[in-house]
């Protein structure tokens, strides 16, 4: 009898499946790990490593800093700063525990979604909070909590910036273990990784997103071990026309030096080819997986929501196209005056978006929740009649799949990776607000259309499990390292 090629992922089982002989050893470089995350990167790393380990792959996962609440029983998870200090010396004293040290966690505000300007701005404002953070009241403040704990749906940078900023970024006092500049952080991580792991035994280096690319390339040069870089998003996606040249350079450097590149979608693969001149044959697409939700609290019965609810959930930034959501709403409202448009999330475009809503006279049809998580987030996902993701450039867009898992039909832009993996979604060009409005009005007017969309899409997301992603990733490992075997 043949063993199944893979078994469904079960987070409770640990260790290699019995038919695995000699495990493949992977050194994985990441920037964040749940629950301390700023975006989809950490969640994706958790899903992928869990499924890989279930296939019998040995993973050592390294991040710049750990916070003490991470749980990763399926692999070794370590912290580059913990064992090696900037000068290559052992750090002095034990690391403080997460519960009582908000201040030492501050430096990890550096987020994969920030460019250096945002990093400086955040650092400036955080210094203020750092002073105040001794007060338990502030720790309960949602903004501070969002910044400290990280968040899935958007850093509340704007709220942070609303605090007075008397000091110049240059004068910001920093924790000794962290540089004042994002690139300095990246460089420090690179040095730490090389000095710590050059002598270790592993088959493949797997680096996630640009912050870890220099470390991956340096370690690969030093050890001769093959390098796989994993592109979850590109600077072009995050910043549009205002690409930070240095980040773009690092992405080019990493993708060109890697033995293989993994892209989260064909959309991203095409971007890598176009922007960084990487040959198509070197890039493999591994779509993210999703965990289908089994039970959803029926929020619709709990609270009285209007008849038609249209939701946007995500960072209110250029990349996510919030302005197209507003323009679309202005076309829907004359025909469905009772429709409520919920915009959940925050980001640098929020003031402009709010202003536009006022200018159009649509304030009574709009609800701005700010950054939300947990039950509040679940409530929005489940009361929405339709979830809109009008992203201008979206490497994947996992929130669309989450919406489906809440039985909410989705409309996604054609400029998104998720449009490739889900057939039963409404699809539209992000700029085509007329078309978007046409589809949304009809979806709101016709429950049978929403029903057909969701029932088919739910079947589709059942197929999008992380095990499929893990198997494709293993193929890539075997391709770059013939010695690596299962």
């Amino acid at each position, binding site marked *: 009898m043949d063993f199944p090629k893979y078994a469904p992922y079960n987070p409770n089982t640990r260790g290699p499946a019995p038919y695995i002989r000699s495990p493949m050893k992977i050194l994985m470089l990441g920037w964040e790990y749940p629950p301390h995350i700023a975006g989809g990167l950490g969640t994706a790393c958790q899903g992928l490593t869990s499924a890989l380990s279930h296939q019998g792959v040995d993973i050592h996962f390294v991040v710049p800093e750990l916070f003490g609440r991470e749980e990763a029983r399926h692999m070794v998870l370590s912290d580059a700063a913990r064992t090696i200090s900037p000068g290559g010396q052992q750090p002095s004293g034990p690391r403080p525990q997460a519960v009582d040290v908000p201040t030492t966690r501050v430096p990890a505000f550096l987020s994969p979604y920030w460019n250096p300007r945002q990093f400086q701005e955040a650092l400036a404002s955080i210094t203020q909070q750092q002073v105040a953070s001794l007060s338990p009241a502030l720790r309960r403040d949602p903004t501070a909590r969002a910044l400290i704990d990280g968040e899935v749906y958007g850093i509340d940078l704007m709220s942070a910036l609303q605090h007075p900023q008397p000091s110049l970024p240059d004068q910001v006092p920093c924790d000794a273990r962290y540089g004042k500049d994002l690139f300095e952080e990246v460089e420090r991580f690179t040095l730490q990784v090389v000095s710590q792991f050059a002598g270790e035994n592993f088959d493949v280096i797997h680096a996630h997103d640009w912050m870890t690319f220099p470390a991956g390339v340096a370690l690969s040069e030093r050890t001769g071990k093959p390098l796989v870089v994993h592109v979850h998003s590109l600077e072009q996606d995050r910043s549009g026309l205002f690409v930070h040249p240095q980040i773009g350079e690092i992405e080019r450097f990493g993708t060109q030096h890697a033995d293989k590149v993994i892209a989260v979608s064909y959309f991203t693969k095409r971007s890598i080819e176009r922007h960084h001149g990487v040959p198509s044959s070197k890039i493999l697409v591994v779509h993210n997986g999703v965990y289908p939700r089994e039970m959803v609290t029926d929020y619709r019965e709990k609270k009285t929501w209007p008849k038609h609810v249209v939701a946007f959930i995500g960072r209110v930034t250029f990349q996510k196209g919030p302005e197209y959501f507003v323009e679309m709403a202005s076309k829907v409202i004359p025909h469905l005056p009772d429709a409520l448009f919920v915009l959940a999330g925050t980001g640098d475009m929020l003031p402009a978006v709010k202003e536009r809503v006022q200018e159009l006279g649509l304030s009574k049809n709009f609800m701005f929740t700010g950054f939300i998580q947990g039950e509040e987030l679940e409530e929005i996902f489940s009361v929405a009649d339709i979830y809109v993701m009008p992203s201008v450039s979206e490497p994947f867009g996992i929130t669309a799949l989450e919406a489906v898992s809440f039985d909410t039909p989705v409309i996604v832009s054609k400029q998104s990776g998720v449009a490739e993996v889900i057939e039963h979604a409404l699809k539209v060009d992000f700029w085509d607000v007329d*078309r978007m409005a046409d589809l949304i009005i*009809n979806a709101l007017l016709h429950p049978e259309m929403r029903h057909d969309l969701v029932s088919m899409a739910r079947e589709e997301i059942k197929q999008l499990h992380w095990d499929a992603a893990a198997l494709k990733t293993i193929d890539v490992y075997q391709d770059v390292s013939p010695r690596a075997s299962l």
Partner: protein
Amino acid sequence: MAAVCLYFQVHQPYRLRRYSYFNVGNSTTYFDDTLNRSIMEGVAKRCYLPANELLLRKIHEHAGAFKVAFSITGTALEQMRLYAPQALESFRALAATGCVEFLGETYYHSLASLYNRDEFKAQVQIHSDHIEREFGQRPQVFRNTELIYSDEIGHVISELGFRAVMVEGAQDILGWRSPHFIYRAAGSSMRLIPRSFTLSDDIAFRFTHGGDDDRGGLTPERYAASVHELTGNADLAGLFLDYETFGEHHGRATGILNFLGELPRCLLAHKEWTFATPSEAIRFLHPVSELSFPRVTSWADTDRDITAWCGNNMQRSALRALYDTMTLYAEHDINAPHMALACETWRRLQTSDHFYYMCTKGDGDGVVHRYFSPYESPYDAFVGYMNVLKDIAARSRKVIAEGERRAASNE
């Protein structure tokens, strides 16, 4: 003696243009004339013209031994008249040979047989009138849209005076019986001519040309041999196909037209086999028994049922909305000049293809649906359709109200 009954379906719908919710009340341009023209011109060039020319030649070559039947929908006929008049001319030339029979169906290739009996009868009459005018023969044998058939529908068809109906030889209906005989409709003297689904699908879906060195492809000789194998166990081989199979679904380069051209000679090579039109078949062949269709069958999709058009919620909702609009016309003379446009549009919206495009099935069936659909997705098809229907309903209400006002002021 046994007969090959070859029947080709010719149909083109009026495809809708992208009609947005914001067009409702502002535009009566519902159909995509440009797309419809280019499809009709293309299909005429690749299929109707070359295949008709080929059939005409073969009919002459075989001096009356080769016969075929066509069913041409009203919407295809109209578009041919508009965009490909030579194609229509070549069908007339075929009609003139006396070896070609034209079958009856609904003018609009609609699902009215399932939803509205009066409307169904009206559309069948319109179609028969047009066929008679165009080709000089009034249809005697019926084929319903996509071979949709049940005992109940059969009853209506026999009321209309048809002598036979083409039906799908669905396996669960036939049971142990063979599709290669003529049957009697339940409780009626009307005949049923079953489609041999394996022999028909061998050409429609499994045709592959073996190449010049002919390895494993479907040759007319091989195909004829599989028909001749039935000798002694069959009265009839019902080969019912979309005409577009020849040159359109299978391009000329596949050799499908040569296959069609060689088929008469190869099939007639066996002394027991001949060709018969459906009317001839029921005249010469006796029905073996009664055949009851307790469920609605069709020739579409793997299940041979009607889920291709009314399988999901959107399709059922759109059909309900469409036939609900009928109530608007119920107490009104739909032939009155002021109603003509709205009614004609409403009938074009009944064409089954509109619902076929809304199908959300996956796998093999889904691939076929997508091949035919001009839309990016079934949801786009549904949205466009509902927008148009909304506009038609609103306009009809307005026209009716105005008519009533005028009538009141005249009194």
